[in-house]
């Protein structure tokens, strides 16, 4: 009989709870709560997960966004500038072809009061290389030979190659964060909770409340003395969302003030017409492109009818048939723009060779040109293509729609038949480097803001594509531009590489993504610049 009364009670509770919830639902809407101490608080939402606070253990955007706020960097770029200038440092320059010397101001402190000296700097780089965490970005320090600290305020980086123009850029990026040697472990990734407990922060902010991958609360770091002006807000709360549509509803309903990375095109399209919010654009470094496997694509080196000239003709004919603008408009609703080079628009030296060489000259497709390219090479049409893309949203949920349109465009004039397939990410990553896919989708988000980041990793020997493309001329040019101290000479070299790549077509550029943030109508100070870092310090409300 106990069970009977228990259930009756349970029923009563259930009914009561439901009624209470519904009643509450009627009188207030989501997220609004009492408490007056939220003035000056900025709420930021994102879908980027944080891997770890420790810079040695992460190589992803979510973690970088947090690290940018709370760790100091020796050099950095100012708002809306691409020039690398001292941040924490007083001076930073090449003192010899293989020596990059940085001097620190005296008397720097971490947020917890520990001294911030050259010893911390050496410790940060040494540990990153020593730990070489599988999830870390220590591989970007490929050119760093050793770090020397003649005194408390001087750091000398000894480099392997001379005049490396890229090294200062890398210092602004993943491995450039400086950490507190009294808190961080020299030989292991330090747990987040230890970092927060020790208040081992030195950036514009310190973290005062940390609920892993849920909410992070930031307050200005009084000891910060770097390049950026002090934070203008009192508190920033960052919330991680798993689903972009929930992020969209949150910013629409005013639950959060700023939504940064990533909203779907449908969400942005809808929000653009909403006067309660503003959509803020910035230059984008993200690119989407197709990769050709030079061994297995039609007429590739390892196929039965291997013929490099025919393979190249196939690639060029495909380039002539694409209508990038149509994809950008229909699938991405303008959140991506057509990309006509391997280096995206807006970067130093970027040109648009694909626009001039292929299609109707204004970005549209040209079937006659494609047919002529194929006929000149003596290729029977239609050519069968197998194209692979990633199905589980590694490059966003719209990949399927994007490639359905690519297939449609390639097949429209009967020159190609496309077998389109998709694969989940981990298998995809394995397959693509083991010659399983003749033609496949990839995307790229830059490590640092320079054209080189779209050249070296892609077309140099031992590149990450592993698509058996190799061209001595391009490789020489890439090596040259990386150490070229003369700006106009470097620009010419970068242009030359792009031009040659648009003939060879190792990768076929499709789209370039803008950075987009959505903020409440009363939010000011959201700066999205070519640093590709969203910095919380200048954001204010009202």
């Amino acid at each position, binding site marked *: *009989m106990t*069970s009977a009364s228990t*259930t009756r009670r*349970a*029923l009563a*509770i*259930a009914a009561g*709870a*439901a009624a209470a*919830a519904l009643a*509450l639902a009627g009188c*207030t809407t*989501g*997220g*609004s*709560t*009492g*408490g007056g101490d*939220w003035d000056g608080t900025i709420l930021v939402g994102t879908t980027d*997960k*944080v*891997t770890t606070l420790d810079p040695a*253990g992460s*190589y*992803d955007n979510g973690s970088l966004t947090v690290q940018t706020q709370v760790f100091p960097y020796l050099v950095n770029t100012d708002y809306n500038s691409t020039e690398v200038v001292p941040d924490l440092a007083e001076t930073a320059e090449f003192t010899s072809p293989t020596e990059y010397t940085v001097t620190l101001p005296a008397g720097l402190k971490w947020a917890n009061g520990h001294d911030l000296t050259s010893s911390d700097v050496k410790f940060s780089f040494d540990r990153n290389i020593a730990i070489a965490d*599988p*999830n870390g970005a220590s*591989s970007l320090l490929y050119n760093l030979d050793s770090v020397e600290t003649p005194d408390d305020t001087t750091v000398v980086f000894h480099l392997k190659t001379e005049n490396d123009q890229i090294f200062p850029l890398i210092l602004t990026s993943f491995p450039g964060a400086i950490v507190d040697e009294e808190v961080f472990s020299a030989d292991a*990734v330090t*747990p*987040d909770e230890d970092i927060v407990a020790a208040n081992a922060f030195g950036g514009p902010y310190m973290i005062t*409340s940390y*609920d*892993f*991958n*849920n*909410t992070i609360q930031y307050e200005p770091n009084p000891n910060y003395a770097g390049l950026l002006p002090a934070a203008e807000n009192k508190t920033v*709360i960052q919330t991680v*969302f*798993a*689903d972009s549509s*929930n992020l969209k*509803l*949150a910013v629409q*309903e005013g*639950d*959060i003030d700023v939504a940064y990375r990533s909203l779907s095109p449908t969400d942005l399209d809808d929000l653009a017409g909403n006067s309660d919010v503003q959509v803020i654009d910035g230059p984008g470094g993200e690119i989407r492109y197709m990769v050709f496997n030079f061994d297995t694509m039609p007429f590739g080196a390892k196929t039965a009818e291997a013929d490099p000239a025919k393979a190249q003709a196939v690639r060029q004919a495909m380039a002539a048939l694409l209508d990038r603008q149509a994809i950008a408009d229909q699938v991405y609703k303008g959140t991506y723009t057509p990309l006509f080079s391997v280096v995206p628009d807006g970067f130093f030296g970027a040109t648009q060779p694909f626009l001039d060489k292929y299609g109707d000259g204004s970005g549209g497709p040209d079937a006659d040109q494609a047919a002529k390219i194929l006929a000149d090479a003596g290729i029977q049409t239609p050519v069968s293509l197998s194209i692979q893309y990633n199905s*589980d949203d*590694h490059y966003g949920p719209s990949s399927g729609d994007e490639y359905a349109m690519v297939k449609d465009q390639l097949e429209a004039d009967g020159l190609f038949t496309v077998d389109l397939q998709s694969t989940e*990410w*981990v298998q*995809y*990553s*394995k397959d693509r*480097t*083991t010659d399983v896919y003749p033609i496949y989708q*990839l995307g*790229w988000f830059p490590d640092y803001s320079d054209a080189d980041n779209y050249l070296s*990793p892609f077309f140099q020997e031992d590149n*990450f594509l592993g698509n058996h493309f190799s061209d001595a001329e391009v490789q020489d040019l890439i090596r040259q531009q990386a150490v070229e101290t003369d700006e106009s000479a470097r620009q010419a070299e970068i242009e030359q590489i792009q031009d040659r790549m648009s003939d060879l077509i190792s990768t076929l550029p499709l789209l370039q993504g803008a950075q987009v943030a959505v903020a409440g109508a009363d939010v000011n100070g959201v700066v999205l610049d070519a640093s590709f870092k969203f910095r919380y310090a200048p954001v204010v409300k009202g």
Partner: protein
Amino acid sequence: MTAATVPAAPAAPSAPRRRPRPAGGSLGRYILVRFLLIFPTVFILVTLVFLFMRTTGDPITAALGGRLPADQLAERIHEAGYDRPLIVQYVEYLGHVFTGDFGRTLTDNQLVTDVLFRYGGATLELALYALLVAFAVGIPLGMLAAYFRDRWPDAVFRVFAILCYATPVFFAGLVLKLVFAVWLGVLPSSGRAGPRNEIALGRLENPTGVYLIDAIRLGDPAILGDVLQHAVLPAIALGLLTAGIFLRLVRTNVIGTFAMPYVDAARSRGVSEYRLVRRHAWKPALIPIITVIGLQVALLLGGAVLTETTFEWKGLGFELAQYLQARDFVAVQGIVALLAVIVAVVNFLVDIAAALIDPRVRY
């Protein structure tokens, strides 16, 4: 996944169910045997998860497959030891588990035990809300269906029950969001509390992870209201699945009890049909429900994965899906092991309860 929609759930009880030995002496032996069976069950499950996870790839490829050259990836994988023979990794893993060391997650360096405690409360809370919804909907409607047996309201309720589990929880979630969050705008669409309140709740000393309790401890009615509001849609989405099962259970059992001699006796004394249902017929119907609640634990936990993902309810199911995508096998193994232990223990307790409530004593 769809497990939560499995109407047949009750059909798959853990093994030696409902056959308590009538004599007292063998009851003890039964409990012992039943208890010992927990271990092979959990062991097999942990082994299966280990094998499955290792066949689907590694966390390094998942994280950096689109950034690094193949040889660098292979080097990192080698350094992390993921390319060693499976049996070596398995023995090592078992060794750690037996010493109670579940390790740190591979992708974000969290203590697995922390992950379990932090998110376990959220899942527990959601499961309880869902059970409440299931009770509140399933029991009265089931009684009504039995009362109107083979007449049209019975058909309506039964079709409703089928609809409850014919609707995938993610579709139910989409529809609920569309109606209540987008069109009507009366309920929050995701999360467990507003961001500000999350911070407030996170600051609490020794948080339980069950926001309802934490909010009550904070004593701020606004926060409590916010927390309850956030729970409404997920609770309905997950609760209705189970409600359908409860409805059928209650209906069948009440109908069954109607045929019992003592009900006949009551009826012959002139007790009204309504009173029969109200007073006599529904109590025995509760016993199978107790059993089913035990079985529902596995399904609620499974259904929680999709519910939690749809509504951003940051619990174990949500985390499981995230870690699975990242191929963080240490985290997945830890979470699944915990779920396995919970399911096995609950089933054990239910079996014992069923054995103790020997129906022959009651009737």
